């Protein structure tokens, strides 16, 4: 009966873990781990105090670096028995603070799970440990003409375990999918120390499909110890078209026209004029500086396929009012076209002491509205923002430029970012397309979801982790936090933007 169900206690207010006994914890863990795998002195813990979201820092109680799955099982059993929070960590490149340590908790680093256990070229799959870098999988598969398709911009550093935790994307998702679409099986350990396999080597698994719940769960449901990924045949050829527009809305319409024509490009990216200027100065990609927006559209496949598609794309771009269209003549030029886009973040770092990267996704047709609203916000907050955009799938990365050393700037940038995210929701989109909620966007979850959904999320977590020990305080806000945030929002002088828009 319904009334026998007990709502998870951590759903209302955050659990208080201040009673955790560090000495007792270290003693228990020392029975499982060699001294080099168990860090508990402050100077050793310091490197773990933040992930890619460096504005938030917190030293944990303990860092553990297990080498075997059996050790992970023992560590989790100890933490469950002593009721200690556990934060799993890959390379620490995440941008939303998902791996930020818990003050009274353990950071469980998977850095020593760095082996590629096998590449099966015939079956097109690779079995890897979670600490293997994303790019290393493609490198191992390259001799067989295969690669691992998802390519987040941080792929030289980020690990597959982190990619699973965040359901990472990249610039080729529209055609090749997100992490979830490229996984066969994830093996993990629950907080109770049970080993569970999600998915299978076949294309499905019996019962509920828990793989999509675990993928993107930000370390809240289980600790990943092994990942089996699908490998994709490397296309014979890739070619890129660079188009310039004198108006961002025209560029957005061109994107819609390409898709409406039945083309799914391998990559479809947009940059606004300030972003183009910032990267051009940095990498000299040959981008036109007078354009209000540029589009990069990549086609891949057999040479015949690419020639056919590029011809169609070119015609559509010209009909959509592109002021210039260039097709990469060789691989070097194609890479140069991409180098600019991939350098957008470092370029922002060159023109501004700090930048804050947003990650909302909106329906593409709303792009013009969003960019105009961001321009108005630049005036409102007296702060610059440059825009790069995974145009193919509607994922926006506005980079808000600020100086953390200026009093109040950090706070203003956060308010600016929050307004962009809330507008993303109001326009029918989401607060995060690929970077995750973490701690960074936890308040905005309250604007995207109502109380019944938030409660359902807490129940999903409790199904895996009844005591709420895995990464507490992340990804899903407590009901209490949402109530407080709601009151704070009501008190703002400018109420929520576009209250009349339908929400999804």
């Amino acid at each position, binding site marked *: 009966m319904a009334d026998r169900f007990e709502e998870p206690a951590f759903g209302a207010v955050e659990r208080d873990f201040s009673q955790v006994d560090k000495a007792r914890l270290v003693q228990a863990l020392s029975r499982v781990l060699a001294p080099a795998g168990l860090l508990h002195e402050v100077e050793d813990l310091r490197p773990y105090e933040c992930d890619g979201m460096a504005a938030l820092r917190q030293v944990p109680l303990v860092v553990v670096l297990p080498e075997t799955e059996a050790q992970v099982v023992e560590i989790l059993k100890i933490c469950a028995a002593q009721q200690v929070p556990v934060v799993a960590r890959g390379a620490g490149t995440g941008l939303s603070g998902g791996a930020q340590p818990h003050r009274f908790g353990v950071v469980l680093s998977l850095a020593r799970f760095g082996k590629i256990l096998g590449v099966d070229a015939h079956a097109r799959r690779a079995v890897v440990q979670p600490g293997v870098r994303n790019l290393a999988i493609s490198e191992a598969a390259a001799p067989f003409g295969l690669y691992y398709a998802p390519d987040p911009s941080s792929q030289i550093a980020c690990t597959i375990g982190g990619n699973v935790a965040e359901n990472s994307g990249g610039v080729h998702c529209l055609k090749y999918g997100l992490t979830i*679409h490229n996984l066969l099986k994830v093996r993990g350990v629950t907080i109770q120390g049970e080993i569970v396999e999600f998915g299978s080597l076949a294309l499905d698994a019996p019962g*509920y499909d828990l793989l999509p719940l675990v993928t993107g769960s930000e370390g809240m449901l289980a600790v990943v110890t092994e990942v089996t990924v699908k490998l994709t045949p490397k296309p014979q050829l890739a070619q890129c078209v660079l188009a310039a527009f004198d108006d961002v809305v025209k560029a957005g319409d061109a994107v819609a026209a390409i898709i409406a024509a039945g083309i799914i490009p391998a990559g479809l990216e947009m940059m606004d004029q300030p972003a183009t200027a910032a990267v051009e100065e940095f990498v000299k990609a040959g981008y036109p500086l007078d354009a209000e927006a540029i589009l990069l559209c990549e086609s891949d496949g057999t040479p015949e396929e690419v*020639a056919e598609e590029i011809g169609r794309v070119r015609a559509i771009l010209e009909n959509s009012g592109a002021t210039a269209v260039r097709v990469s003549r060789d691989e070097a030029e194609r890479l140069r076209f991409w180098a600019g886009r991939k350098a957008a973040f470092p370029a922002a770092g060159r023109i501004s002491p700090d930048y804050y990267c947003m990650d909302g996704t909106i*329906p593409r047709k709303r792009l013009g509205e969003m960019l105009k609203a961001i321009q108005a916000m630049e005036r409102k907050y007296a702060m610059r923002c440059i825009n790069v955009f995974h145009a193919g799938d509607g994922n926006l990365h506005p980079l808000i430029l600020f100086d953390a050393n200026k009093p109040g700037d950090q706070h203003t940038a956060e308010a600016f970012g929050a307004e962009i995210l809330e507008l993303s929701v109001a326009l029918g989109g989401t607060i995060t397309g690929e970077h*995750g909620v973490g701690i960074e966007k936890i308040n905005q979850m309250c604007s995207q979801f109502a109380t019944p*959904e938030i409660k359902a999320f807490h129940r999903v977590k409790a*199904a895996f982790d009844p005591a709420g020990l895995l990464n507490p305080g992340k990804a899903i806000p407590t009901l209490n936090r949402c109530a407080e945030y709601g009151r704070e929002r009501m008190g703002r002088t400018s109420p929520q933007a576009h209250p009349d828009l339908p929400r999804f």
Partner: protein
Amino acid sequence: MDDLIQAWSERVRQAAAGGGRLRIRGGGSKDFYGREPVGELLETGACRGIVNYEPSELVVSVRAGTPLAELEAVLAERGQMLAFDPPHFAAGATIGGCVAAGLAGPRRAAVGGVRDFVLGARLIDGRGDVLRFGGEVMKNVAGYDVSRALAGSLGTLGLIIELSLKVLPRPLAEATLRFDTDEADALHRLNVWGGQPLPVSASAWRSGGLYLRLSGATAAVGAAVARLGGEALDEGAAAALWCGLRDHTDPFFAGELPLWRLSLPSDALALELDGEQLVEWGGAQRWLRSERPAADIRQRVEALGGHATLFRHGDRHGQCFHPLPAAMLALQRNLKNAFDPAGVFNPGRLYEGL
């Protein structure tokens, strides 16, 4: 529509309070599937219609009771499709039933399964609460991805009322080739081709014949046909073949012998189980007509790294779906309990106690 949803929500609430059970049914085209359905019938047909369709966004939002045929016709008008190729099995199949069953057709191995195309869902949970997960955009990692997990849950987690799905353009060109070959060689070739940049969109092998469908840009299909050889099927024969495999109107699926769906790693060796067999999905899905005891079939399939479903005919009171390891079963029970603590929806359709 709001009135209907409110009435359903009230009905669920009353069932939960009074120990009632609901058997959710769309068009009834998959009544044969899963363990024996029980409970008071709740038919979703009144909850129909396309809510939002934006061809250039590649997204359609549709009410659960909408007939699949109606939805597919609307998409076809704009040159698009549900790429996972959902089987209809019978007239009247609905999109809600399609997602709840989680079954995909011949294109599965090439493009992904049902869950890969689910972007968002609205449902009524076992408390009568109306919940919305996911959304109408391609990339969305806010909150646990509950909407994708609904695919294949057989309506046991909630009453789906609306779905947002990613759609894809229909291919410009298609060709189907036939090769004379035995099972072992067919499995080998399918895996080799799978590792090459070929536009394969479907495959099947049965009794000496391997069939391969190529889809994509005209030039790509033409080049692949020239390279692979084989005997080309004419358009009508090809359409009849793939449609028959998708909807199980092919003679292989006729008769009353138990039909097993075996889901295997694509490179798994030949089954060596007696019974008539049909291979699909590049080797990853194999159909078997056999009266061999379930235990024998499951043991062999497990040894090959897969799982077996008693798909049609045979005993529906026992296990239709492959038994789960204890730790996994516990998680699945917890998840069921999280969404439907009173056990209102489709009790026992998936597993006993779920």
